[in-house]
Structure formats: structure tokens, C-alpha cells
């Protein structure tokens, strides 16, 4: 087991290498010149050339890549072209809201979706089931930004229950303000995950309910509720956890939009601003960072399987 974990961690190195190559190539291939953006609308060709020189953008691509990878290996993700701050520092500044938003979203989604999907499976074909499925289709279909504004309109502007925008750190301002600010973004981002996870839970539990050991449990005289909790859900867990893992990957996209709608100073906003400004080092750094997080999450999910199902051993 330990050997397996070490192997998987070691494997992240070549994977990150490939990701780095792709990120570098894609950015260099896409149109737009950061030097021209920095220089502004009234710059001369010489100005642009001078800035390109300063940024190292006139070096051959191979040299640029080499320089970049070399500094990566020293833990240096580069320096923002515009703010002049190290990318690592920018990420560190912005990481808290994003992490906490992701965490509340996942917790809330799982807490709602798993019971909902299980209930739908248990009552398959009933009105409750149809309602859950309808919600699920709806949840998939509503774009995050539409939902975000609708929620703001209802809960913040009309009912005045919750603040419109912004973020309060629980470490600085306490739990109350944090929760009141994070509620709407969490709801917004959760809807699609609840839809996804509830659907998967329903399918998975329905399948498991047909299994022989569920019949065995009934033959023992076990009550339906306990048959469901002790025998069905536990066995249905592996595909559900897989979907949660996929969900976290999707989350990264959702975070960008949600943070913009709610004006949260997180990594999502950082991505958006960097893309608009063509701040290469930040974009590169963030993609690498997200890839790394994603690989670690996958490892974590694979390890979770071994706790859920004793037949899975690495």
C-alpha cells in the first residue's frame, strides 16, 4: 500500500512534465502578444520590441521552455508580467476563498445528493423519483451565471437575507460573516453537482438493490431502511465516489464563473484576469497548480476505494 502511494506520487512528475509542455505550447501558439498589451494602444514598434526583450519573449521557444522548466524545478512558478509579483505568492494570496468554496460545495452537494439519489432509487418510478430526476435535468441545464444572478435577485435584493457579493474570511471575520457570504456561491455551484451526484447515486443504488445479497438481507428479516443503509448504499459507494472525483475537476470551471458573479477574490478570478491580460506566467502557473491538485485528488479517490471495498487492493 505504502509502495503504491509512493509510486503514484512519483508518477506525478512525468505527468506534470507533459502538462507543462502542453501549457507552454498552447499559450505560445494562441494569438495575441503580451508585449503589445503591456505597451498600450499608443506604443511604437520599438516600445513593443523593447518590452519583448525585457520579458525574454524574443528568445527561441526552446530556450524559453528550458528557462521556465528550470525555475519550475526550483519551485519558482515565475513572476507576473503585470503586477511583478511572484506567481506562487499570488496563488497563496488567492487560495483560501477558492479552497473553502470548493469544500463547502462538495460537502453540501454530497450531503444533499446522496440521500436524494438513494431515496429516488428506493422509490424508483414514484413521484419522488420523478421529481428528483426532473431537478437533476434542470440542474444540468441551468448555466451557473444565470442561477447565480437569480439567487442574488431573490435572496439578496428581494428578501435581503444574504449579502449580494464579496467574501469574508472565517479566520479574520469569524464564522458568521463567512457563512452568510459563502451561502449563495455554494448554492450556485452545488446545483450542478447535486444533479450529477444524485443521478449517479440513484443509478448505482438501483443496480445494487437487485443484487443477491440485498435479497439475503431481506431474508434475514432486516427492515427496508437498514437494508438500504447497511447493504445497498455502502456497495453503491464506489461509482458515487468516482463521480464526486470527476465533479471536483468540473468544479474548477465552475469556480471561475461563480467567483466572477459573486466578486470573490479567489483563484477563479485570478485565472480570468490573467487570461484577459495574457499574463503568461500566471496562466501557466495556475494550470500547473490545478493539474497537480487534480492528480492528488485522483490518488485520494483511488485510496478511498480501498476503504469502501475490501476487494480493491493495490
Amino acid at each position, binding site marked *: 500500500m505504502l509502495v503504491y502511494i509512493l509510486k503514484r506520487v512519483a508518477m506525478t512528475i512525468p505527468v506534470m512534465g507533459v502538462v507543462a509542455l502542453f501549457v507552454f505550447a498552447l499559450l505560445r501558439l494562441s494569438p495575441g502578444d503580451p508585449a503589445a498589451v503591456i505597451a498600450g494602444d499608443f506604443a511604437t514598434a520599438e516600445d513593443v520590441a523593447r518590452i519583448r526583450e525585457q520579458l525574454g519573449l524574443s528568445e527561441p521557444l526552446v530556450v524559453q521552455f528550458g528557462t521556465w522548466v528550470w525555475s519550475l524545478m526550483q519551485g519558482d512558478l515565475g513572476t507576473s508580467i503585470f503586477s511583478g509579483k511572484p506567481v506562487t505568492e499570488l496563488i497563496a494570496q488567492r487560495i483560501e476563498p477558492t479552497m473553502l468554496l470548493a469544500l463547502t460545495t462538495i460537502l453540501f452537494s454530497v450531503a444533499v445528493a446522496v440521500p436524494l439519489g438513494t431515496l429516488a432509487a428506493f422509490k424508483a418510478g414514484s413521484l419522488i423519483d420523478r421529481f428528483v430526476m426532473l431537478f437533476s435535468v434542470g440542474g444540468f441545464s441551468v448555466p451557473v451565471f444565470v442561477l447565480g444572478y437569480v439567487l442574488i435577485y431573490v435572496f439578496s435584493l428581494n428578501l435581503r437575507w444574504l449579502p449580494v457579493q464579496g467574501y469574508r474570511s472565517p479566520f479574520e471575520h469569524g464564522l458568521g460573516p463567512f457563512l452568510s457570504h459563502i451561502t449563495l456561491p455554494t448554492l450556485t455551484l452545488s446545483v450542478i453537482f447535486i444533479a450529477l451526484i444524485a443521478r449517479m447515486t440513484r443509478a448505482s443504488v438501483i443496480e445494487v438493490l437487485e443484487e443477491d*445479497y440485498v*435479497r439475503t438481507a431481506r*431474508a434475514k*428479516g432486516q427492515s427496508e431502511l437498514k437494508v438500504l443503509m447497511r447493504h445497498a448504499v455502502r456497495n453503491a459507494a464506489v461509482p458515487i465516489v468516482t463521480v464526486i472525483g470527476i465533479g471536483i475537476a468540473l468544479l474548477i470551471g465552475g469556480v471561475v464563473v461563480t467567483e466572477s458573479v459573486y466578486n470573490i477574490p479567489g483563484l477563479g478570478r485570478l485565472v480570468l484576469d490573467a487570461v484577459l491580460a495574457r499574463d503568461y506566467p500566471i496562466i501557466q502557473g495556475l494550470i500547473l497548480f490545478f493539474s497537480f491538485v487534480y492528480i492528488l485528488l485522483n490518488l485520494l479517490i483511488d485510496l478511498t476505494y480501498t476503504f469502501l471495498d475490501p*476487494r480493491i487492493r493495490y
Partner: protein
Amino acid sequence: MSGAVLSVEGLTVSLPKGADRANAVEDIDLAVAAGEIVCVVGESGSGKSVTAFTVMGLQDSRALKPVAGRIMMDGEDLLRVGRRRLRKLRGEKMSMIFQEPMTALNPVARVGDQIGEMLEIHTDLSASGRKTRVIAAMEDVGLPDPASMYRAFPHQLSGGQRQRIMIAMALVLEPDLLIADEPTTALDVTTQAQILDLIKDIQARRGMGVLFITHDFGVVADIADRVVVMQHGRIVEQGLAEQVLRAPEHPYTKMLMEAVPSMTPPEREAATGAETLVVEGLDKTYGHRGLLGGGRLVHAAKSVDFALRRGETLGIVGESGSGKSTVARCVMRLIDPTSGRVLLDGRDIAGLSQGALRPVRRDIQVVFQDPYRSLNPRRNVGQSITEGPVNFGTPQAEAMARAEELMRVVGLDPDALERFPHQFSGGQRQRIAIARALAMQPHVLIADEAVSALDVSVQAQVLDLLDDVRDRFDLAMLFITHDLRVAAQICDRILVMRQGEVVEQGPTADVYANPQHDYTRALLAAAPGAARLTV
């Protein structure tokens, strides 16, 4: 009936509209007395399992509705008690074991806890009290080292051990009635014999009643006190086992008993055709040694040798894990042998590349075990039969004409070529699978448990057909089976395998009359009904 732990009276269970008949079972009358084993025997679709499941209240209640009759147990009608009461009775008064010990246990819970769950539901015992009872129950069913096996997960146990766990679970509360639904069908013969002994033993010790569902008259002969024979949802005959086995009255019962293949091989002349398939020193290992000598290496076949002539049937018999299927797959080159030679008409095909193998493929054809899964459900029968020859360049019209001819050979209507597999019964599908294999004009036909999934009456017909096509097309047939009765009837020679090794081979009659190896003797002795069923 006095002293009956269970009495089913006039039970009728309806099927949903549009099924092939109105009722799954009709007007069922049967009783199980304390200390008695009642076998309900019948083929698939006879309603024997529906009867058993309805007693437990475990039938699929959306499709199967009891519409008439009573199921009496201790003065209570199980069809009319509330759900809560029924749950209380399950486990305490009656319990059930199932056909598939592989899937009947929850794979993610420890077996001890699964037995303990029974006590948790029905008693007030403390956790440690439960554990003591569970370990005692595990000991009672002959499980080795129950204290440590308590913590095992189902996948760590063998099929026989899992069935013992199921039995321990079913009996931990000492119910009056045990319902056993084909509990040994999925097990190897030697394991089957042990489990049957165990059920008989516990039953006698505790004086409980057992309702035993089976399709196998051999099993009936081994354990039944009384027999109930069912056909198409009705009871056609019931009586004391002695009586029914000695002098069956209903024609269906007679047919069922006659269809059980005899353990005595018929006279057979030694084949004289040319040797078409020769296997020399065939070895197959799975897994690999780790760098430091760790890892797992499974020797699935160890230096297997045999030769097969045209017009001859060679049986490979053995239990699960014996390597019989591995040998068949190596011969077909579905898997690659680790070493050894496979000579087909003098040419070694053991090491041929996939490309070089392609033309050889048509010479070796196979009929698989499960006719429900070996035919593509989305293609009609004609397409399935002609696909192979067309791939090898036969014009479609010619392949179709040959398919029609083959349908007649296997006893089906050529018009049925237009139809799809789900429109046929299991036996008919197996006939189609045989026609599909024959369409390639093979030299060697491999039948891999080809009759094991079929009802006995159908099994006999398909065996006759295989024998017939072997002679008609001068085939060399390799017949893989776990069933010694079937092997006795169809094989000219047999080869007994255990743990990847051939322990004995010879003409069938010799091996059965005078087995040389202990394992062969054990296998022959374990065949169900060997003692009482001498049809």
C-alpha cells in the same frame, strides 16, 4: 397435517399480463413436517423457486401476486400477516439459503458481522454475546478456525466456505424451517457432496424441516425424504422419495429421471480416424514473479499431453480451478500457452501470431456454456451463422443456403434464421450455437460446458445432437465438463484434471469402472445420486 412446520394449501401466484401463462404456480399443496427434507424438483419455469420465495415473502411483488391459497406456519397464514410480523418470522422461524454463494453475501461486510446481523435484528444480545454465538454457529457448520474467519470478507473464502457461512447465518437462530434454493448447484461435485451432508446432518440433529429446491434428481436421491415434482407451475406428483424414485407414476417424472445421464458409460468402439489435434507439454502460467521473488504465479496448466482423432470425443473433466478451461482456451488460442506444442493436422499453432492464426481459426470452432450470452442479441440468427464463412470469403448467398441446411441438421426450422436469439429457448439457442460452429466446417469442435446450463431433458437432446454432428461431419470433439454423468455418456476417452495437472486419462469405460487415481475415485463417489439413483 399435524406436526407440519409448513403447509402450503391451494397456493396460486399470478404472473403479470402478457406472460406466457396466467399463473406462475397454480393450486400448490405441499407440507413440510419437522425433521423432514422435502425436495421440490422441476426444470426451469416449473415454478419451484417461485413457490419457495413466496413462502418467505421474497418474490418480486411487482410481478408475482399470490391470488389464492394459504401458507400456514404455526397457525399463522404468511400471506396475511403484516410486513413487520413477516420480517420477524424470517430468520426466527424460517430462513433461506440461495443458489449463488458468490453473490449472496455482502462483499463489503465481514462474514462474522453478516451472521451477527441476524442476531442483531432478532435478539437483545450484546456485541460480545453475539460474537460468541456467531463463532459457535460457524463451528457448527464445520468452518475451520472460526475466530479468525469471523473477520474475513466473502471474497477471501471459497464457494463451499461461503455456502457454509450462509448456512450458519440461516441456522443461527435455530429456525423450524430451512428453505434451500438450489444451494449446491453452483458448487463443485466434491463440495456439493459435503454441503449436502452438512444439511442432512444439521437437519437430523435439530429436527427442523427443510424445503429443498433442486433441478437435479441425483441430489433428490441423495437427501430427500419426500419429493414434490413440479411442471409448468403445477405439482404433477408427490410422495415418499423411496417410492417416487423406485416407481415414478407421472410421465413427466419418468422423463425427468430417464433424462439424468447414467454413470455407466455405454460400449464405445475406439476411434480410428487420423490424429488431428495433438497437444504436447502444454503449460500455462499466469501472473509473474516480482523482482525480488515476490508476486504470485499461478500454474493453470502443467505439461498437459493428449491426442484427439477425427470421429472421437475426448472429455476433459475436473472441478473449478482444475485447468480444464485453460487447456481449451490454449487449444483455441484464445489465450497464449506459456510453453508446449499444439499441433493441428501436424502444424504447430501454439506460437503463431494473430495474423498467421486467422486462417487456422476456422478449423477449430467452439460452443460455449451460456447460450444466453454467446449469441449477439442484436443480430438475427442467419447473420450470426453466416458471419464466419462470409469473413472467409464465402459468398453471402452460398453461406445462407448452407445456414438453412445446418438449421435442419440441428433440428430447427430454416425459417427461424430471420429471428433473433431472445425468441428462442436455451436449448434452441445452443442448437443455433452448434450450427454457427459447424458453418465454419471445422475439424475440431470444442464444447466448453456446452450442456451445463440446460435443463436435463434438453441436455439429453443436445448431447444426442453433438454426438450426431460429430459422426456426420467426422469431427474431433473436445468436451469440457464438470459433470461426470454427462461425460460418461458422450466421451470416448476422458482426461481427469486437478490443479492444472492431468491425473488420469483413458477410455471412459475403463476410467469409470476402474479409476486409478484417488482424486478420480473421489470425484466419482461425489457425483450426486451415485448410491440410490441407478437408472
